[in-house]
């Protein structure tokens, strides 16, 4: 190919000689049809970007959220606020949510994604935003409830019928149990799970060595590490392992619809995760300040908190939590403040015990 060129000119000569006609109608029709199809496809593709045709311009607010937040926000909280804002100001506003592992979205915000509001899995990621200079200081602490939007305890999902007989974190250490655990490197949920397994044993026995042994036992059985809590659940659902450690909230949505195909295991003691809301002042687009402020305020309204309860999150308003009959009973529920807050827990438990000792001992 290529040596006997130029081809097009010769081809037309040939055709003239052979067919002795100037216009090749079938060919022209074919080309025209091709052109029409191409043009139609092209206009379909570029339609939204054509000026004046892409629909009315609406004010948009960009929110980044940790992995399990998608449904509650997109199905209820955003539509409710959009309606409220329209009633109050007559203006349309649209929320664009990006969900991912808490650590991943935090890294993206440090790199500069245009997030105006972030809802993180744990305060530690909010502190990383402070350290990186994305927000000037721990401004979330000035929000209602210290910035905590809602809570959910860490529990276990077992296969139907619980064939491995799992009742507690200690049972996860039994030989032959495959544990699916999100990756603490990126997932906020995974760090909660580490503190849950360690803290439950520490509070029950009072012995840091026994607590360390329990965490080690769990990690010797970890068979899959997904980037986020939601991804870990997908992994579990596609058949990996015997048990998954994750947020209670993950199960309640399906439980309420009668679609849950796992058995929930509530340990005697576990941690209740607390999810902070962070406002990224420097990213707020001109003219959005008012709507962002109103939205953040709305998050702690009774209306929004009820929606979180309906989606399986435990509200910061204790009295609303009776509205969800599916919340499980936890005998010894504890919070991160019981370990001196996240900064200390990170240093002592996640880094000091899990990363430096447990990981080395299981040889990962």
């Amino acid at each position: 190919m290529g040596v006997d060129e130029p081809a097009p000119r010769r081809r037309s000569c040939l055709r003239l000689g052979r067919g002795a006609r100037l216009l090749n109608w079938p060919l022209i029709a074919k080309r025209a049809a091709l052109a029409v199809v191409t043009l139609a496809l092209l206009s379909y593709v570029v339609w939204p970007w054509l000026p004046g045709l892409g629909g009315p311009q609406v004010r948009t607010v960009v929110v980044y959220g940790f992995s399990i937040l998608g449904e509650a926000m997109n199905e209820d909280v955003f539509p409710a606020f959009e309606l409220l804002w329209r009633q109050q100001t007559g203006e349309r506003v649209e929320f664009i949510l990006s969900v991912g592992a808490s650590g991943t979205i935090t890294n993206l915000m440090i790199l500069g994604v245009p997030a105006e509001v972030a809802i993180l899995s744990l305060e530690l990621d909010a502190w990383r935003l402070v350290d990186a200079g994305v927000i000037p200081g721990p401004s979330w602490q000035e929000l209602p409830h210290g910035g905590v939007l809602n809570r959910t305890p860490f529990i276990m999902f077992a296969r139907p019928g619980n064939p491995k007989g799992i009742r507690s974190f200690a049972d996860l250490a039994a030989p032959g149990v495959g544990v699916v655990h999100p990756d603490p490197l990126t997932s906020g949920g995974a760090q909660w799970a580490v503190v849950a397994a360690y803290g439950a044993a520490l509070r029950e026995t009072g012995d840091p060595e026994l607590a360390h042994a329990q965490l080690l036992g769990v990690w010797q059985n970890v068979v899959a590490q997904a980037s986020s809590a939601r991804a870990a659940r997908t992994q579990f659902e596609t058949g990996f392992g015997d048990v998954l450690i994750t947020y209670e909230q993950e199960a309640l949505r399906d439980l309420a619809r009668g679609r849950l195909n796992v058995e929930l295991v509530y340990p005697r003691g576990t941690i209740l995760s607390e999810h902070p809301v962070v406002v990224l002042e420097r990213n707020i687009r001109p003219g959005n300040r008012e709507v962002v402020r109103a939205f953040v305020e709305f998050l702690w309204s009774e209306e929004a908190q009820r929606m979180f309860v309906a989606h399986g999150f435990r509200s910061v308003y204790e009295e609303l939590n009776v509205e969800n009959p599916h919340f499980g009973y936890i005998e010894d529920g504890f919070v991160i403040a019981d370990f001196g807050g996240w900064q200390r827990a990170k240093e002592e438990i996640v880094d000091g015990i899990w990363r430096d000792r447990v990981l080395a001992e299981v040889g990962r």
Partner: protein
Amino acid sequence: MRVQRGKTWLPVALLFLFLVPLLIMPFVAVFVFAGRGGLGAFLEVLTHPDVQFALRFSILIALITAGVNVVLGTYTAYVLTKYRFRGREALTILVSLPVAMPRVVVGTSLLLLWGPIGLIGRLLDPLGLQPMFAPAGIVLAHLFVTFPYMISSVRPVLEEMEGTYEEAAYTMGAGRWKTFLHVILPALRGGLFSGSLLTFAHSLGEFGATIMVSGNLRLRTQTAPLYIFAQFEAGNIEAANAVAAVLAVISFVLFFGLLRVTRTRRREA
């Protein structure tokens, strides 16, 4: 090549023996899972605004990428074959490296260059220019990743082309530009066509670099592969596979077209 006649069933059966588990079944799985919820659910996914945006956005990005790289790639191949200069060999290797580079690395290096805290991005940020986490960033990533495909389609033709045609054109008084337009470009048609299709197809399916530089915002910067990944991670396997099926069909049509065109061209030659 001579077409083998006689016993064809044995080699063909052998081919299918490994193609079925390696290639054909994964494709079938995409369509099986895409259709698991029935046609209604499939169409509901495809008409969702997020999906409509993701598909259009992906095709638009692929069109831009192919359009730019047709020009840049052809020019690069032309200079690298027709001119002799110091560092030409090193440059020849360099332009084909993006194929071997992990896509994640492409994404991070673009971020560290053009991002708000990057080497150049830091200077652009005060001016209100932010290529990353915007369509421009995705195009930059795709241009980088698909750069070699155009060159590798065009270069063999340029190298094989006998200098006599060009020389003839020059002796007849044509300049470099005229020669390129009337002698070289017609010869390159096949290469240009297959190169731009390859570029388009690779851009359409690009994931690793895109997820790093796009910010993955639905209705803003979420391409079809990113949508698929997000839905799969979230456990919406039908939605993920419905979009994957559409991408598979687009790619099939593209490569079918490529095959048809190269075949007719070969017959003509």
